């Protein structure tokens, strides 16, 4: 039943993306200054917010793991972190491509870009830390602590272009600026693509959680095999 739900949600997410791509490429007008390239924005901001949701979910699950020592929270935390890392990579790479066209450079060490890269590296470190600790309970405890502290880097990245003068553009969404700084049709499309990315993230986290459960089954079978041998 659970697998059917995952497949169903995956198909729905794929269809949602097809619909969104149709609107993004064929219906929305070009941006006056940027031409066609502004459409990268629909694959830059939604993955970022989805990654933030994944990292927040991982931090909450890590806190719950430390409180209850229930394995399912650790499984969720590592799965959400890995999916968040893939989405944050999309955010970084699409931002670089947009920057190359608009600024003439691939990268600049401003507060927003630098903190986004550091955040990505911290979460990569989280996964490497897990690989390095063999004892399951030590691994879960240490990585839970790191996951909670790593979320401060996510918050810093979010606020960086308010706290510092950055080359990265400031907020454009009406909910953050309180003004109509973006065409309503473009803003609506951003939220639609955010919906599609969130749904995709739910599917990927569920698939990754299944893998983590299978990995634990392998470790248990290995222990039994060692005991017999």
């Amino acid at each position, binding site marked *: 039943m659970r697998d059917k739900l995952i497949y169903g949600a995956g198909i729905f997410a794929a269809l949602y993306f097809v619909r969104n791509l149709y609107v993004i490429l064929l219906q929305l007008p*070009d941006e006056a200054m940027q*031409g*066609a*390239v502004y459409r990268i924005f629909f694959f830059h901001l939604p993955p970022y917010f989805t990654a933030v949701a994944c990292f927040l979910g991982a931090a909450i699950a890590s806190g719950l793991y430390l409180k209850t020592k229930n394995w399912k929270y650790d499984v969720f935390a590592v799965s959400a972190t890995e999916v968040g890392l893939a989405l944050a990579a*999309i955010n970084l790479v699409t931002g670089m*491509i947009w920057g190359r*066209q608009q600024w003439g450079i691939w990268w600049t060490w401003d507060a927003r870009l630098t903190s986004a890269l550091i955040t990505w590296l911290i979460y990569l470190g989280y996964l490497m830390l897990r690989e390095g600790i063999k004892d399951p309970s030590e691994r879960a405890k240490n990585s839970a602590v790191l996951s909670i502290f790593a979320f401060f880097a996510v918050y810093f990245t979010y606020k960086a272009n308010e706290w510092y003068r950055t080359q990265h553009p400031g907020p454009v969404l009406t909910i953050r600026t309180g003004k109509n700084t973006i065409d309503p049709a473009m803003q609506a499309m951003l939220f639609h693509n955010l919906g599609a990315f969130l749904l995709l993230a739910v599917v*990927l986290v569920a698939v990754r959680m299944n893998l983590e459960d299978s990995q634990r089954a392998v470790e248990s079978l290995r222990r039994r095999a060692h005991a*017999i041998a």
Partner: protein
Amino acid sequence: MDQRNFEYMFYGLAAAWTILCLYALLLTSRGRKIQSEIDHLKRMLDSSPKK
């Protein structure tokens, strides 16, 4: 859509989908590897003499 800056838009969208597809492939390949390891370990445990 006009053709102004179309090339970089294409690169951006292609990069996003490439990363997503690579991650999905990675998950699939890990799933297969784990499943074959489970099958191997189960076979090994079934064939081992019971104590």
